[in-house]
């Protein structure tokens, strides 16, 4: 058991850097090892969000632009958080069909990624990509559309049920909230969202028929009167802000903040691993909320900081021998690809058609490998986002991961575009054990191999090797890199 004053050490430093970034180099691990958990978490979370916005004249170029940014960024935690929010506020280009809006949303996610969560949700309310994706632009008083209202509660803030399994809202609440969001459209001449009086479901018009604008009469801890969201700001733009304020006051059946628990749970599982069932999960979630004060301040930086000092976060760091109760977590495809490129210092090449590819590789574009691994950025499979953990693993996605590993390790590029082991390790090594240790160290899984697995890699090398001989190097050292990148250990946290 530890706390924020516990010194990291190498194993936990590497874990912290892998989970909050994309791979960890030896020098970074050495720099973090002597720090306490608290000091390290502060160092990682105290960044100023960048204004980066993926560039390009179509969605494919913008996708590559974001990937390139992840590979080169000096603040990888920022991008890990943007990925998290992209999954949370899942929005797909397939429906939005406007790549500028997708890029704008990406910048919005970055600006708010560790800011105030309530402000974040209010900003998402009026994000054009989201308004298009979940039909706020198609929500008129005569033909109300419940899509955004439903997901605002189900996926963005509350969840269908609280931790104890009690419903958080009912259909009537969805209907009521959709009334609040009626009337919004896009003003093409000014290029901004616009509130249209004529399409808004005003109380004066439908009061008698649809009742007062009240939510949470049955749920949420407000009692049978519920909460009237037209007060005190009046209807229109203030109304949707008022709805968010009320959502954030919603209580679980045991009186705890629903929003705080919902978001804390998801972030804990993102940086850590799936939580145990209720009520054990509540113990972990509530202690992190208590330390961070998230249910009062909605400060995401402080919440992430407290997650990164909690014992729960370090549970997946353990090295073999594993107990059956040792938790692990599957590395996301984007994490795998970006980590591999960063750790091996391989630069995919760009061409004038907007491709970004591994020279000599099987695919013409890095996003192509990612598509087969099951993760197309700006194209989550549904409003639910991606399926985490085992959902990432099947024969098709594994073959895509293996192919990427093979191509990165084997591709014969020119100049600085291909794998150059000499910049990563000492080519003077000859003993198979030393070479295996050096390669697994570069990739960051040396601590996670059993003696048998290390021996299997040594057996692959055969006997002592002269790595300065290019033929030996290409045949065996590059082959070893491919193998190590394909090992289960590299695909798990």
């Amino acid at each position: 058991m530890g706390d924020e004053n516990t010194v990291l050490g190498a194993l936990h430093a590497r874990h912290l850097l892998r989970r909050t970034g994309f791979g960890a180099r030896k020098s970074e691990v050495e720099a973090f090892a002597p720090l306490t958990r608290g000091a390290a978490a502060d160092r990682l979370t105290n960044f100023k969000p960048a204004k980066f916005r993926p560039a390009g004249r179509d969605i494919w170029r913008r996708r590559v632009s974001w990937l390139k940014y992840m590979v080169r960024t000096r603040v990888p935690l920022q991008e890990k958080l943007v990925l998290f929010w992209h999954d949370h506020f899942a929005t797909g280009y397939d429906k939005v069909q406007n790549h500028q809006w997708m890029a704008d949303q990406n910048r919005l996610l970055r600006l708010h990624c560790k800011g105030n969560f309530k402000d974040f949700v209010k900003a998402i309310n009026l994000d054009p990509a989201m308004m298009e994706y979940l039909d706020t632009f198609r929500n008129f008083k005569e033909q109300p559309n419940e899509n955004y209202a439903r997901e605002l509660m189900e996926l963005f803030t509350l969840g269908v049920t609280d931790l104890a399994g009690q419903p958080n809202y009912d259909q009537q609440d969805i209907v009521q909230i959709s009334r609040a969001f009626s009337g919004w459209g896009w003003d093409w001449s000014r290029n901004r969202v616009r509130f249209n009086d004529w399409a808004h479901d005003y109380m004066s018009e439908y009061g008698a028929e649809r009742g007062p604008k009240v939510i949470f009469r049955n749920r949420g801890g407000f009692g049978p009167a519920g909460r009237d969201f037209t007060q005190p700001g009046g209807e229109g733009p203030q109304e949707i802000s008022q709805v968010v304020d009320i959502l954030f006051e919603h209580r679980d059946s045991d009186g705890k903040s629903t929003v705080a628990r919902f978001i804390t749970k998801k972030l804990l599982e993102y940086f850590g691993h799936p939580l145990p069932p209720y009520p054990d999960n509540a113990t972990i979630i509530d202690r992190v909320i208590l330390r961070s004060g998230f249910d009062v301040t909605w400060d995401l930086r402080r919440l992430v900081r407290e997650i990164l000092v909690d014992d729960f976060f370090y549970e997946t760091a353990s090295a073999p021998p594993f107990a059956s109760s040792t938790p692990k977590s599957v590395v996301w495809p984007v994490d795998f690809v970006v980590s591999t490129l960063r750790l091996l210092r391989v630069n995919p090449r760009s061409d004038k058609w907007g491709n970004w590819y591994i020279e000599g590789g099987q695919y013409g574009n890095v996003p192509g490998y990612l598509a087969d691994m099951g993760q197309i950025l700006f194209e989550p499979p549904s409003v639910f986002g991606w399926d985490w953990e085992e959902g990432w693993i099947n024969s098709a996605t594994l073959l895509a991961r293996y192919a990427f590993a093979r191509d990165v390790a084997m591709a014969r590029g020119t100049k600085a575009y291909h794998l150059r082991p000499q910049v990563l390790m000492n080519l003077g090594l000859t003993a198979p054990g030393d070479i295996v240790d050096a390669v697994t160290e570069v990739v960051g899984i040396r601590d996670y191999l059993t003696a048998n697995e290390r021996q299997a890699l040594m057996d692959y090398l055969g006997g002592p090797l002269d790595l300065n001989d290019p033929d030996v190097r290409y045949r065996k050292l590059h082959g070893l890199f491919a193998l190590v990148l394909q090992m289960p250990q590299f695909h798990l946290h």
Partner: protein
Amino acid sequence: MSLSRRDFLIRSGLLAGGLMANGLWARPLVRKAFADIGDRFLVSLFLDGGNDGLNTVVPIANGSFATFRASYELLRRTGPGGLRLEPSVLSPYAIDNDPPTNTPLALHPGLEGLHRLYQLGKVAIIQGCGYPEYNLSHAVSRSIWETASRAAMGPGWVGRYLASRYGASQIPGLSVGYWMAGEFRQQVTSVLTASRLSELQFPLDDWYPDDNSAKLSAFQAVYASAQASSQPLLRYVGNSGQATLTATQAYPTLDNLYQTDRPSWLQQYNNLDTGTARRLREIAKVIYGVVQGVPNITARHFALSNGGYDTHANQGTVGPNQIHYRLHREVGDALEVFYHDLDDMGVADKVLVMIWSEFSRRPQQNDNGTDHGSQGPVFLVGGKINGGVYGNHPNISDSRVLNPGATWDGNTIYSQDNSDPHRSTDFRDVYGAVLKHWLAIPESEILSSLLQLDTGDPTQYWTSPQFDFVHPVNSQPLFLP
């Protein structure tokens, strides 16, 4: 499996009259019966987006006990954007009447291929399948169907069955497409995912092919080590990787085998030139491989999907440019080839295809399409199916359907009330029937570990399972012995 074999033999009467005597195995019929169970194939075909049930199984005329055709004509307009299918175009595709109301029904003309199979008696249509308090979100409702759980969580319903019968190193299933089908999801055994068998290629180094065997043995060694780990996720990745490698060595060979042995069938699928035909073709290749006893080809459970059913706009009626017609043609035509291909292989009696969608669509059409709805028909296709119309047509004459107001969205009313002539079928009854009668799982096991009953009002919730569907006309069971 011994129990289920026994069950089968008892059901088929083979254990009666001291048949277990000397020379039993010499009798072909008995040998066949023993080989039968555990010898079956299951194909799950998902219509992605919410298929419009009302324009799939359509009332042609009013029945003796209901005026569904009149209601249909109120709900579905003629003229521009109108979705009404006229009796003249429907009559060639007539099927049995709706059991409780005696309403004459027909399939959408796009389902002509499926209708020919219906005429052969190989298609069962189970009307009005759904669940209470319908969720109109694509993702949630789909998860509910996939997991057979109202909470829309956990492993898939087929996955739970696979996990109970197959081990980590076995490959009992193939999900055709880029994603693992949700109904197959689980962590115990290995289900392949591939859109074409030829894609199951292990990436090796083309520059040093002589090093490949060394690489593969090292790969196998590290994955075998993960398989032996006590950490569940590491073991899962180990199993998946090892199964994937095995599959890459066996499955791509099926391409050649099928091409050599069954070129005319291959041509028939290719002539259709649709995604569904291609996906069923890949399944046919695997079934043929299993039938031929190709080593390491063991997949008997398949999933595929056809997308595009979310017809909010421009749904269309009949004709090659009409969206819903095209979707129906794609599925019906491909299934017809698939069935006859299997029949030609001699295994049509061993294969069951189940066709489902996450929800149906609203009876009242909008401008020129339909919005998300509730209960809809499920199709079961196979040689051992007792073809016909089961279940009850949703009551589209209900005033809440014909005149949707502020309190009801206009979808048909879901009911489990036995006194309701239009009683719905809980979709888990269909799953249970498949598990019990097709996969020979004891009902007690189904209800204890595979499907979960609801608690609450029995006129709404699934509290009394009804797995033993009986044909309303010939009174024989849904699955023929």
